[in-house]
C-alpha cells in the first residue's frame, strides 16, 4: 500500500441538479406568474361567472380523479405495485351502472291516468342508489378477481413484474369489453330528475351559471366517500390491519392478520371506489365505452403520485389539484386547451422536483442509513 500522507485537495464540486433545479423551477414559476399577470391583471378577459364555471368543472372532475386515485394509492400502499388495470375496473363499474339504468328505464310503473313512467323516472333516488350499489359491487368483484388471478401469484416477485401483468390484464379487460359491448359510445339514460345538464341556475352578470345536479352529486358523494374511507383506514380494525400489512406483511401475519384477506379487501375497496367513480362519470358525463377508463386511469395515477403515492389524503389532494389545474390552468395562463395536459404535467414535474415524494408524501430529504 502506498503512503497516506497526502492531504486531500481542497475542492468543491459542482452539483448539476442543485443548480439546474432552482433554475428550472424559477423559469417555470416565473412564466406562470407572468402569464397569470397578463391574463388576470392586464387583459382581464374573463369575468367572474366564467371563473366560477371553470371552478365547478374542475371540482367535479377533481372529485372523480381523487376517487380513482385513492384506488391506486390503496393498492400501492399495500403491495407497492401500480395497478395499471385500475382504470379498467372503473370502466367495468361504468358499464354496470349503465346496464342498471337501462333496466330501470325499461321497467314501466303504472301511474294512474298519466302516460306510464319508467321506474328510473318515477323513483330517481332509488335507481341512483341502486346504480351505485351495482356499479360498486361489480367493480369491487372485478378488483377482487383481478388480484386473485393476475397479482396474487406474483406477490413475491420484483415490483415490475406485477406491473406488466397489470398491463396485460388492462389489455384483456379493455378488449373484452369492446368485444362484449361493441366499441360504440353510449350515454347513461339518467333519471329525468337529474338529467345531464339540468341543475340550479345562478344569474351572474346576466349570464347563467348552471350548477348541475349530477355535478353536485358527484362532488358531494366523492367527498363523502373519501372522508369515509379515510376514517375507515385510520380508525377501524380493518384499516389498521391494512396499514400493518402495508408496512410489513410477515410481521402482520405474526400478529394473526390474514394478509391475503386484507389484500383482497383492499382490492375490493379500491374497486368499489373506482366503481363509484365510474357511475358518477356516467351520470355526469354520460360516456360509456370500453376505453372510458384509460384516460381517467392515467390521470388518476398521476394524481396519486402527485399527492404522494401510498398516501390517502395525498391522493385526494392530488386528484382535486389535477382537476382544477386541468380546468382552470389553460384559461388562467392563456394557453390553448390542447396543451392542458402539458400544463398539468409540467406543474407536476415542478412540484415533484421540489417535493420528490409528492405534495403530502413523506419528506425524503434525508434518508435514514
Amino acid at each position, binding site marked *: 500500500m502506498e503512503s*497516506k500522507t497526502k*492531504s*486531500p485537495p481542497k475542492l468543491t*464540486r459542482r*452539483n448539476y441538479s442543485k443548480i439546474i433545479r432552482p433554475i428550472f423551477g424559477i423559469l417555470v414559476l416565473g412564466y406562470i406568474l407572468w402569464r397569470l399577470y397578463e391574463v388576470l391583471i392586464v387583459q382581464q378577459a374573463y369575468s367572474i361567472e366564467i371563473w366560477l364555471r371553470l371552478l365547478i368543472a374542475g371540482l367535479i372532475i377533481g372529485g372523480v380523479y381523487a376517487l380513482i386515485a385513492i384506488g391506486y394509492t390503496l393498492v400501492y400502499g399495500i403491495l407497492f405495485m401500480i395497478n395499471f388495470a385500475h382504470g379498467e375496473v372503473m370502466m367495468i363499474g361504468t358499464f354496470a351502472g349503465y346496464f342498471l339504468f337501462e333496466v330501470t328505464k325499461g321497467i314501466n310503473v303504472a301511474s294512474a291516468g298519466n302516460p306510464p313512467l319508467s321506474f328510473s323516472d318515477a323513483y330517481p333516488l332509488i335507481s341512483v342508489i341502486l346504480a351505485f350499489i351495482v356499479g360498486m359491487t361489480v367493480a369491487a368483484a372485478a378488483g377482487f378477481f383481478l388480484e386473485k388471478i393476475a397479482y396474487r401469484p406474483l406477490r413475491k416477485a420484483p415490483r415490475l413484474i406485477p406491473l406488466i401483468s397489470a398491463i396485460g390484464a388492462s389489455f384483456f379487460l379493455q378488449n373484452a369489453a369492446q368485444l362484449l359491448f361493441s366499441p360504440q359510445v353510449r350515454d347513461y339514460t339518467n333519471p329525468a330528475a337529474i338529467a345531464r345538464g339540468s341543475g340550479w341556475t345562478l344569474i351572474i352578470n346576466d349570464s347563467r351559471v348552471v350548477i348541475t345536479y349530477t355535478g353536485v352529486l358527484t362532488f358531494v358523494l366523492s367527498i363523502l366517500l373519501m372522508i369515509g374511507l379515510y376514517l375507515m383506514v385510520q380508525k377501524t380494525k380493518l384499516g389498521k390491519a391494512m396499514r400493518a400489512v402495508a408496512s410489513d406483511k410477515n410481521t402482520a401475519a405474526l400478529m394473526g392478520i390474514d394478509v391475503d384477506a386484507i389484500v383482497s379487501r383492499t382490492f375490493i375497496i379500491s374497486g368499489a371506489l373506482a366503481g363509484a367513480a365510474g357511475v358518477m362519470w356516467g351520470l355526469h358525463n354520460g360516456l360509456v365505452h370500453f376505453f372510458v377508463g384509460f384516460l381517467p386511469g392515467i390521470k388518476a395515477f398521476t394524481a396519486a403520485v402527485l399527492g404522494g403515492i401510498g398516501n390517502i389524503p395525498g391522493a385526494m389532494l392530488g386528484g382535486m389539484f389535477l382537476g382544477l389545474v386541468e380546468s382552470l390552468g389553460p384559461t388562467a395562463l392563456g394557453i390553448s386547451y390542447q396543451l392542458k395536459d402539458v400544463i398539468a404535467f409540467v406543474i407536476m414535474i415542478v412540484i415533484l422536483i421540489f417535493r420528490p415524494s409528492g405534495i403530502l408524501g413523506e419528506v425524503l430529504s*434525508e*434518508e435514514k*442509513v
Partner: protein
Amino acid sequence: MTEIIIEAVKVSKFFGGLIAVNEVDLQISKGSIYSIIGPNGAGKTTLFNCISGFYTPEKGDILYYGTPIQGMPTDFIASQGISRTYQNVRLFGNLTAMENILIGLHTKLRSNWMDALIHSPRFVREDNWSMQEAVRLLDFVGLKGYGDFLASNLPYGLQRRLEIARALANNPRLLLLDEPTAGMNIQETTDLTQFIKRLRDELEITIILIEHDMKVVMGISDRISVLDYGIKIAEGNPKEIQANTRVIEAYLGPGGAALAEKYRSQRRKSHA
C-alpha cells in the same frame, strides 16, 4: 502527539425537534482505533453519517486533514479515502461478491464509458488490474472461492466481511465500522476483532468503531468516546471509561458475569 486525521468540532445534527448529535467534539489521531459507544439512539450512527457525508451537520465542522468536508458530496468524500460499513449490512445484494468489490474499486479507476466502448489500452490495463486486486481483497478477508456468489446468498458473517472488503477496496485512510460484530457469536467476534487489528497494523488504516460488545471495545480501542442523548459524556482510554460512573449508569450496567449469576440464583429459587 501524532497527526490528527479527522476532527469534529462542535458538531450538531437535528431531526425536526430532535437533537440527534449535540455539539460533539472528536479528535482522532492517525493510525488509531477509536471507539464510539453509547445507548441505543445516542446518535452514534448519525455521527458516522455526518462524517461520511450522508448528512450535513447543522452546526460545527468536520475537518479531514484539517480541511472542512461537511456538506461535500458523499462520493467525493469517499474518493478522498473515507470508507464505511453499515449497521444493517448494505451490500449490492443481486451482484456477486467480486462485483461488489469491483464497485468498491471505483474511485481508483479512471477509465470512462468511452474507454469501455473502444476498449482503450487504459481500459484493458485497468480491467486486468482491478480483477486481480478484487481477488486479492477477496482473499484478504477470507472469501476466496466465494467470488461468484451473489452477495445476498452469502451467510451473514461473510456478508459483513464482504462489506469490509468493499470498503477496503477504496484504499481508505479512514475506515468507519458500524457495529461490525452485531449478530455474531463469540468465536466470530473474536476473529473479527483480530481482523480489525490487522487492518490497522498491516494497512495503517485509521479506524472508528461503533460497538455494543464491550469485550471488543475494551480489547482493541486506543481511545473511546461515550455518547448519550447526542452528547459526549466521556472520553478516554478503555480503563478510564470502565471506571467512569456516568458511563456505567447510562450504558454499561452491572457486569455481564455478575448478571448471569443473578439470574441463575433466581432460577434456582423459582424452581425450588
